[in-house]
């Protein structure tokens, strides 16, 4: 029995009447990741109540987050917003002493056109703590794209690399000849330009990815975001960057255009197939031949056998809310499931090119039709389609 495979990927767009979470939700995981940060969300009661529920029990552990709650006087521009923010930031500095304060703009600040980017540098100079501004609002973004706006803002604060690429190569040669102990450490890794990975992951997952690349003799110079704000990696001309999350298209663009880095476009390390493809894309850039990936992937699939038996042949419909849908669909198809539709809030076709082609390849390999992709879905229409 042969199945006609649809070669072209169709991406449709619907009305955008769907449910997703507000992008300020990114605060709930980013404040934990960046240990010396403080997040100040400038919004209203609605925003505050949402984060209170999202953080759940964590809110009682005095998280490094607070709301600058806008009241009627602020909205009608009767009170000076600079003075208001200054007072709050001074208090934050006194109570928590963070290395960075990140202002999160919301729908409200967009509508009243509060000039956060204008006020931040001035206040930073006055109180002596770096202040970043990320406009994570529901008018423009959905859910995980909040992290995208924060990382894009943070990218500007990364230091310049200390040497240019050519100089660094010479320095390494220098080390090799004179410092034999150092030599042992360097031989573990190939001689290659800086690689910085971007995307927020729990530190043990990040360590595992570092280890996987280390096995291929590739050294990860740093992560954006780093565990501490003071440990931000160096970015600049000659530095290679690679993302781990599908929703970081703005950060990728900022890194390419403003910081002049080279982006390695790879599918995302979600699932054993994705992880292998991700490593396979990175290795050739540094002239390294990937080793042992096929066996490793096979072994993982073996260990998942019980679960694979459970899901084999069953079907899935992605309604779409977190932008990870394409990678998840690809993984589940590889697991033997059928995906009817992939709803997704927004898909940057260029940033997800590699992932999309991996999706196509996986569909061909598993002999299933390529699911349709619907951007900005309409939940009611989707429910109707599910019933049909």
């Amino acid at each position, binding site marked *: 029995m042969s199945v006609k495979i649809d070669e072209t990927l169709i991406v449709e767009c619907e009305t955008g009447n769907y449910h997703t979470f507000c992008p300020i939700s990114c605060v709930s995981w980013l404040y934990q990741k960046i240990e010396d940060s403080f997040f100040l969300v400038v919004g209203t009661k609605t925003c505050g109540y949402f984060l209170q529920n999202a953080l759940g029990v964590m809110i*009682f552990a005095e998280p490094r987050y607070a709301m600058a709650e806008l009241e009627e006087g602020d*909205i009608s521009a009767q009170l000076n917003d600079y003075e208001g923010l200054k007072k709050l930031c001074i208090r934050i500095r006194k109570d928590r002493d963070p290395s960075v304060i990140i202002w999160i703009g919301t729908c409200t600040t967009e509508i009243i056109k509060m000039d956060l980017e204008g006020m931040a540098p001035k206040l930073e100079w006055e109180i002596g703590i770096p202040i970043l501004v990320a406009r994570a609002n529901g008018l423009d973004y959905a859910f995980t794209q909040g992290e995208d706006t924060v990382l894009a803002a943070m990218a500007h604060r990364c230091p310049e690399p200390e040497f240019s690429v050519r100089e660094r190569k010479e320095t390494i040669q220098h080390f090799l000849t004179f410092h034999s102990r150092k030599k042992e450490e360097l031989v573990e890794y190939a001689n290659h330009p800086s690689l910085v990975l971007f995307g927020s992951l729990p530190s043990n997952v990040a360590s595992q990815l570092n280890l996987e690349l280390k096995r291929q003799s590739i050294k990860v110079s740093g992560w954006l975001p780093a565990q501490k704000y003071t440990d931000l990696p160096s970015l600049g001309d000659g530095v290679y960057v690679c993302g781990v999350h599908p929703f970081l298209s703005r950060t990728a663009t900022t890194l390419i255009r403003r910081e002049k880095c080279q982006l390695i476009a790879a599918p995302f390390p979600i699932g054993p197939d994705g992880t292998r493809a991700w490593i396979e894309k990175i290795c050739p850039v540094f002239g390294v031949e990937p080793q042992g990936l096929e066996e490793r992937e096979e072994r993982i699939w073996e260990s998942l056998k019980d679960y694979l038996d459970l899901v084999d042949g069953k079907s899935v419909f992605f309604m779409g809310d977190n932008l990870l849908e394409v990678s998840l669909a690809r993984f589940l198809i590889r697991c033997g499931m059928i995906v009817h539709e992939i709803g997704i809030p927004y898909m940057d076709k260029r940033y997800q090119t590699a992932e999309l082609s991996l999706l196509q390849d996986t569909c061909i390999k598993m002999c299933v039709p390529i699911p349709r992709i619907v951007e900005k879905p309409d939940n009611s229409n989707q429910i109707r389609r599910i019933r049909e």
Partner: protein
Amino acid sequence: MKLAYWMYAGPAHIGTLRVASSFKNVHAIMHAPLGDDYFNVMRSMLERERDFTAATASIVDRHVLARGSQERVVDNILRKDKEEHPDLIILTPTCTSSILQEDLQNFVNRASIISDSDVIFADVDHYQVNEIQAADRTLEQVVRYYLDRCHRQEKWDQFLTNVPSVNIIGIFTLGFHNQHDCRELRRLLRDLDIEINQIIPEGGSVEDLQNLPKAWFNLIPYREVGLMTAVYLNKEYGMPYISIAPMGAVDMAEWIRQIQKNVNTLTLSSSNKRVDYEPYIDGQTRFVSQAAWFSRSIDCQNLTGKETVVFGDTTHAASITKILVREMGIRVSCAGTYCKHDAEWFKEQIQGFCDEILITDDHAEVGDMIAHTEPSAIFGTQMERHIGKRLDIPCGVISAPVHIQNFPLGYRPFLGYEGTNQIADLIYNSFALGMEDHLLEIFGGHDTKEIISKSISTDIGLIWNPESRLELSKIPRFAREKVERNTEKFARQKGIETITVEVMYAAKEALNT
């Protein structure tokens, strides 16, 4: 602008949505940006609902910001009308959209011309009013809309029911133990031979609202929500109402006596028999409710004179204070509420029952007060429970805002005679836990277990290198020991002497095969 990270009452639109989603066949539409419709998931999660919540959003995005909603809101209303056929559609803005100052009333008027369902605009000021006040107002608005229309069309049936009947106003979704309280009230009213005309808004239908005035009087179990409606029904239709919370044995008796008075007043005019509930009250208080007997028992004498702090919404904070003092002989050093708009009533109710009164919606003030007072137990919201955890003071939760654990699947009313039992249990258990911990501390209860498990792991002589030790320390405490043991077991099996980070991850993978 103020620094906040916790609020006791949510924003106004949540109150409106709670009322809308409590009614049957009513659909709410939020005029809001993406993400403001988190109420949907909140409700299905906390109430453990199986169906989608009947609330959707008419999305406000950049286009709307630039050009206004134009046809979008009206189209969305009409679409819901066709898809779901609700009896009523309520349109509500959120904080964000209310700044846009679009003429939502106009959209509602236009839509209602075409749609089969009724359409109302929930008229609440988002910067003046909180969740609770908004719920009260929206309920009143809905009731008023239907009764006014009925009156205008001169359709309504002016006669009271033949047998005594009541409306219960104020049971709604995501309310603190509301569903259980409702069941208890039904049972009580059945015992008193009183019929229930309607319960609104939970499970009520807007089509039936026109029959509200047929009941003899109204019961408002929680004064925060429902009072406005009761006042309206009293003014326009002369319906008496009882707004005492039937919580605790003393207030229960008072509540039943007031019911008796109302029934007898109206009975006289239609010449039925008078009722006397005194024997019922007596029987329930002394025999059915265990609380009254228990509070005189030796176990409870332990608690006499102990100091507590109470904080919550006006209904629960006031009632619990009175129960603690009047019925259990426990002292209340400070009682407070975050319902600032009802402060006068609160103060009047608990005057003389406690040493200090605190009216605030700033959790930091409450925390300071508790730290300063050092009570033996706290009775408050989940925020007070966490303050208690930090200060090592036991706490029972008696009021919203709450977590999912306060939406129990089992039957746990706060009202009624069963409620008195539940409250007595809660109070006693809150104190007892504190004492248990204390005893364990004195007698070193947990020590022996630690020694046993330590000896198993140190026997082996495996070395953890500095990096793996660091990695281990990043694992949360409750999982760390397990990971440690699993890794060491793996290392022993493979004959590895030094544990590195790689060994840790290999052990983790091996665990899954």
